[in-house]
């Protein structure tokens, strides 16, 4: 789709949905944003369509298959696979454990198991050696695999909105701040996040540290200022909604290096670990934000990789992420301190 030379309101409205879907070329995105900057009515239309998309997602996601249909589906697949009902159905957890314990014994005796263990050890070695292997790993990824790691538009939008909302609320806070220990309930790896990030936060002043929520996504969030402008470091779960492919990919995203975006004048730089995504957001130009992300996110990414390796989350046999990774299990005991800019936004303290 070629960008129109001069974008008018009509062109803007025609391209707006494709812009929100991330389907436009970079230069067309730019034209769309330039027009929105100049035209108040079109900015209003952009917000209204964003809200409509969020509303559509919310209303559709309430439709779920019945438990009975889901169980029947599992049974049919197992029966089709020729797996005895006894093996598959002797209690959910117990049956699976029993079956795989047996499998493990057989595997130990096979050369395939040896090869697999060697592969896992090599994966772990590559994972732990860090950044220097990233480029090498990237060369091994196919274009499809690289595409599979592309972050979703919804994650970008939620991150940018969280940055915008928290920055408005926290940039004037007196500081210094520290991440409350209650962050453990959201993500234990984020305890002391401010101290971990301090290694790369030279020249930044920490104003706030909290767990916040935008839409249905939660972030461990550090808000800094630099020269009066807000800078956010956000850590969130790398679930299926975080990636454009909608699939949990079977390899570490770190090998890709940072992904860069600009959304509504907010620049975002994102790194992935096996379980999480670390984003740096600011109102700086994209290049400047990327350089800042490089220094600010790296110690956090390395810390998270170590925590994940310690929790046994290695790359094994080509896949790591599991369905359970879909979202945080924290109970939503939300105390909305303030609804800022957007009614869906809230900051909460999990201790209460």
């Amino acid at each position: 789709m070629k960008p129109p030379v001069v974008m008018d309101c009509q062109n803007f409205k025609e391209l707006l949905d494709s812009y929100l879907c991330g389907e436009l070329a970079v230069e067309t995105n730019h034209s769309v944003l330039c027009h929105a900057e100049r035209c108040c009515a079109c900015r209003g239309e952009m917000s209204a369509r964003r809200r409509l998309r969020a509303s559509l997602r919310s209303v559709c996601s309430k439709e779920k298959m019945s438990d009975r249909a889901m169980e029947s589906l599992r049974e049919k697949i197992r029966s089709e696979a020729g797996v005895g009902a006894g093996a598959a159905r002797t209690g959910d957890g117990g049956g699976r454990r029993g079956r795989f314990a047996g499998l493990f014994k057989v595997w130990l005796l096979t050369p395939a198991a040896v090869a697999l263990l060697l592969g896992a050890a090599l994966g772990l070695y590559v994972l732990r050696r860090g950044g220097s292997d990233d480029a090498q790993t990237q060369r091994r990824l196919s274009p499809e695999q690289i595409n599979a790691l592309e972050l979703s538009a919804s994650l970008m939008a939620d991150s940018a909105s969280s940055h915008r909302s928290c920055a408005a609320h926290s940039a004037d806070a007196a500081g210094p701040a520290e991440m409350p220990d209650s962050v453990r309930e959201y993500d234990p790896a984020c305890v002391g996040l401010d101290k971990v990030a301090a290694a790369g936060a030279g020249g930044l002043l920490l104003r706030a540290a909290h767990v916040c929520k935008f839409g249905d996504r939660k972030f461990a969030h550090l808000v800094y200022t630099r020269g009066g402008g807000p800078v956010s470091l956000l850590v969130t779960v790398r679930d299926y909604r975080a990636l454009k492919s909608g699939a949990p990919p079977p390899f570490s995203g770190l090998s890709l290096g940072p992904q860069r975006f600009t959304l509504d004048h907010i620049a975002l730089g994102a790194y992935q670990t096996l379980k999480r995504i670390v984003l740096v957001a600011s109102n700086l130009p994209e290049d400047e934000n990327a350089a800042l992300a490089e220094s600010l996110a790296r110690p956090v990414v390395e810390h998270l990789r170590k925590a994940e390796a310690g929790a046994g989350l290695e790359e094994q046999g080509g896949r790591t992420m599991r369905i359970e990774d879909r979202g945080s299990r924290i109970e939503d005991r939300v105390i909305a301190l303030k609804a800022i800019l957007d009614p869906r936004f809230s900051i909460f303290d999990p201790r209460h």
Partner: protein
Amino acid sequence: MEQNDKLQRLELFEAEALGFSGQLFRVALRVCRDRERAEDLIQETYLQAWRSFHRFEIGTNLRAWLYKILFNVHYSEVRRGRLELAPIEETIAETIAYDPPTPQQLTEEEVLAALERIPRDFQVPVVLADVEELSYREIADALQIPLGTVMSRLSRGRKLLRMELANYARGAGYQVAN
């Protein structure tokens, strides 16, 4: 050994492919407009997916692959006469020249009601793009229609949705910008 491979493949299938059942079901519901039929469609889709799973290349787009199977199954059911074929409703959308602005205040019930009033040919691409976040190319592959047709159905579908919503908003006295 063969049995072990199968168990391993089954475990992989259950862990990875079944995770998309919620998304697929939402789309199946739009396609069938009936809960029970949608559940049947999902069941058949997953059975066929399992039968071909040994050919699936791990690391490629599993979600897109599953959607493609879902629509394959759906089209075969339509061909076999098990499902009624929705009439082509292009003419309805052809008549929309006016692009209504999106209302600023909407309830989820109104959004759902408006979505359900859109003809199926337009509703499904809108849900695939705006709810499930498939790329236009993935939608074209899943629905087995040209990319240009996807874009035109999306454009008309979204316009119809806005029109329905604008009607609701006017009825409720909400502000609709001109």
